């Protein structure tokens, strides 16, 4: 009887471990970034390596992205040299996107994903969608919806501790 109880507890524990493992977001290598540059310098997965990075997909037509835009710039400044921030303008009109970046004074590089392919590869389902990469280029966190400075900085710093 006691043996059966121990076996049952072990079985339940094992099932719980499996369930927790399955529910944890998968860590996977980040897909390639788009090659087109909207503002700033080109960035690639290779250039991002060595420290955490925040890749933020947005569009000028996206209301929640407008809400997040100031926080993204403040987060980039707060992170300083601890991480690289890259914006990716997704399925957007170039002139509107440039105006958007200028309006919010973004100081970080912004790439263009005109046909959305990079965004689909990353697994965006809406905008904004941010992906935190560790120093080796693996996606370690996905942030869907508009973020705050605190949530962005915390996610990136957690990736830094992990690296």
């Amino acid at each position, binding site marked *: 009887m006691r043996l059966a109880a121990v076996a049952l507890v072990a079985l339940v524990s094992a099932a719980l471990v499996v369930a927790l493992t399955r529910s944890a977001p998968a860590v996977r290598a980040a897909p390639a970034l788009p090659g087109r540059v909207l503002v700033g310098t080109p960035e690639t997965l290779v250039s991002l390596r060595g420290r955490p990075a925040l890749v933020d997909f947005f*569009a000028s*037509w*996206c*209301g*929640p*992205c*407008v809400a997040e835009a100031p926080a993204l710039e403040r987060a980039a400044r707060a992170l300083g040299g601890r991480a690289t921030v890259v914006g990716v303008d*997704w*399925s*957007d*009109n170039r002139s*509107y996107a440039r105006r958007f970046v200028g309006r919010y004074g973004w100081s970080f590089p912004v790439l263009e994903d005109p*046909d*959305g*392919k990079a965004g*689909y590869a990353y697994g965006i*389902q*809406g*905008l*904004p*969608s941010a992906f935190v990469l560790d120093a080796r280029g693996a996606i370690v966190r996905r942030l*869907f*919806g*508009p973020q705050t400075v605190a949530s962005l900085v915390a996610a990136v710093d957690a990736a830094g501790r992990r690296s």
Partner: protein
Amino acid sequence: MNRRPLGSRGVRAGGPIGAKAWPSSGAGAVIASVVLLAVTACGGSSPSTQPKTNPAAKPAAAAASFDGPTLANPAVEPPLALRDSLGHTVNISAYQGKAVLVTFIYTHCPDVCPLITANLHNALALLGPRASKVRIVAVSTDPRGDTPAAVSAFLARHAMTGRMEYLVGTRAALKPVWKAWGVSASNPTSADEVNHTAAVYGISGSGKVMTLYASNFKPADIVHDVPLLASQ
């Protein structure tokens, strides 16, 4: 062709895990209820442009070989004849032999409508020359705000000028269309925002509503389904 309102028969929307079927009910009610589940309101409290997940958004496993959610028993397309923003009459019954994608949006929508439009644009890009097999039709859910100038600017911004027919009209003209397609449209909180059903209907070349895509559909599903829709 008999053109009854949508939903006189069951709707099937399932996925690899297990197909689901909704029982039949009164005309228009079934699809209306599924669509309302499948979509989210524009603007308002939506935390992002990401629509809520819904059971109807999973790819079909049991029905046909479409990648998008399919109707268990395809319904005849409801009537849809309105003027576009340039004043031209558009009647989807004239598009026999082509796939037709019908959606309901408004131009100053901050989230779901531009996402749908961007995904449709990306689907066209992926289709390449096969895009000739499909017509894309948007129907206004905002009779007051969707002026010709607003529609023109919206289409240009999303590189959809000449690629999406944007149908407009007075509330009196649009309301019967919304009803026939099981679409709701209202301004509950703000004069500038419209809560509305936001899905994409896939119409076959013979004029039947075969598929129903959630607002965050994958363009790859459309790319896969367009030739099938056109041929059926």
